[in-house]
């Protein structure tokens, strides 16, 4: 028993070190002054961050990324929300088709998606090749599985169909039922899938590089350009980028924990939530 405990502890410690080591190295590298042939840097400096934050190109790239992301998630929300709602409540026979359509991009890697997008938009009637609008369209598609899952699960949890018929029975119009009853109730679910999409798009490189490249330099492209120039500045970018991602992930995890009580009240199907599960495993009991 004692041996077991030591074993599991060792496993966890090694895992944490292994996972965090590259990050820690990047962090130290980004604040290192002179650093060669020693275990830890000889001096610490913030000048790489200073350089980064005074670089106009960095802000431009960040702004471009933000622009792309915000436009995409806005369009995605405005279009996906009513679509999924209408199909779930009024056209249940389309549900399977919608699911297949929405989940398909999950199985198609961006590198494959890029092939077709280049083919279709490099020539032809729509001249959006090389513009951010092509990226917005492509990003709409790659975030679709996450938006679909989030919105659909939320609609199921609140039992949207019954809610709407109840509201209509009480004299509300369809639109009122949607806007006043359904949307407020699934807001946190939408928020989670939106944040998830933002985090995904923030780290997106493949499509940005292949479809638009240097013509619309996003934060990932900027980082790639800097890789070969200054290691220290690049590590400052990586850390800045990662802090933003961490913040997003943290908010997502916190939000995901919450709707659990709500779910058990309604007793509907449990979502496949990795963190914040309420079930007590036997393993924990045995451990005591």
């Amino acid at each position: 028993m004692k041996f077991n405990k030591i074993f599991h502890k060792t496993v966890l410690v090694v895992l944490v070190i292994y996972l965090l080591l590259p990050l820690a190295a990047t962090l130290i590298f980004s604040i290192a002054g002179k650093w060669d042939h020693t275990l830890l840097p000889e001096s610490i400096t913030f000048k790489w961050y200073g350089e980064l934050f005074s670089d106009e190109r960095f802000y431009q790239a960040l702004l471009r990324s933000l622009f792309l992301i915000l436009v995409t998630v806005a369009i995605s929300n405005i279009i996906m929300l009513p679509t999924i709602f209408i199909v779930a409540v009024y056209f249940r026979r389309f549900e399977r088709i919608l699911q297949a359509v929405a989940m398909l991009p999950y199985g198609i890697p961006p590198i494959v998606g890029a092939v077709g997008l280049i083919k279709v938009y490099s020539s032809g009637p729509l001249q959006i090749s090389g513009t951010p609008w092509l990226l917005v369209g492509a990003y709409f598609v790659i975030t679709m599985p996450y938006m679909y899952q989030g919105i659909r699960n939320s609609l199921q949890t609140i039992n949207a169909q019954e809610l709407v018929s109840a509201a209509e029975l009480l004299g509300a119009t369809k639109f009122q039922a949607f806007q006043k009853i359904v949307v407020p109730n699934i807001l946190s679910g939408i928020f989670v899938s939106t944040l998830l999409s933002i985090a995904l798009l923030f780290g997106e490189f493949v499509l940005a590089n292949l479809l638009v490249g240097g013509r619309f330099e996003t934060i990932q492209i900027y980082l790639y350009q800097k890789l070969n120039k200054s290691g220290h500045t690049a590590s400052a970018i990586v850390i800045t980028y990662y802090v933003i991602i961490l913040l997003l992930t943290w908010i997502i995890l916190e939000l995901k924990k919450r709707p659990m009580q709500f779910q058990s009240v309604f007793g509907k199907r449990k979502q496949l939530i990795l963190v914040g599960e309420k079930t007590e495993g036997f393993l924990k009991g045995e451990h005591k």
Partner: protein
Amino acid sequence: MRKLKKQKLFLLVLLLPFVLLVISFEFWPLFAMILNSFLADDGKTPSMIQYFTVFHSSYYLQAVQNSVLISLFSSVVSIIIAIITAYSITRFSRKIQDRMLMITNMTSNFEGIPLAFSYIILLGSNGLFTLLFAELGLDLFAEFNLYSWSGLILVYIYFQIPLAIMLLYPAYKGIQKQWMEAASLLGATNVRFWLHIGIPYLLPSIVGTLSILFANAMGAYATAYALVGNNYNLLSLQIASLVASDVALKPQLGSALGVLLAVTMLAAMWINNRMMRRIRRDLS
């Protein structure tokens, strides 16, 4: 009655923007790629020449082989590590479990260009470890080259492990305390419990996770691109350079490779789906 019909029609009209976007950015490009893969180099004559080229060129077969090998190897190593670590995680208190999942979740976001960069800092030609080991006179990394097969494998394993743990952990939580109690009441030892109940129960999850990991590695592009540029013969890198590089554009051939990659990925996803149905009956 007529009003109801009108309403339904109006609702259908509201679905139009979605249909339009999905057609223009999902189905049309996919369809164009498939169509393109059945054309000769001139982009007009229908032909099977692209697939013929792929299956008769040792170069492109090598790319497929490299991709499959790197994906298979990194997935198998990661799943073995995940089987052990996910189990270890479940042996700790709720609080530590949550914290560990937080760490895996957060490191799972660490991929692509930033990840490749971190590894360059650690193990690149002027990397911290590279220099440190050279200083200490350790030959451990003398043969190691980050910008090659072994380097790619190392980085692939790194980004697969958090994902593998996150996917496997819920399966461990599905093993009920009562099962173990019942088994031990009936006289089963710990080893026999795992042999006859635990592992068979986990098996679909393991196979399903493995297929997801495989697909994940097959489609990976950014990490490899940042490390080796177009200098290493991988399927995803080949596709990119055939459709979007400055030299030697061969979109039809790129499309054929793209179709092959998509088919592999969809097959992996299909396996995962089948396996998930075996454990979660509520899905079917």
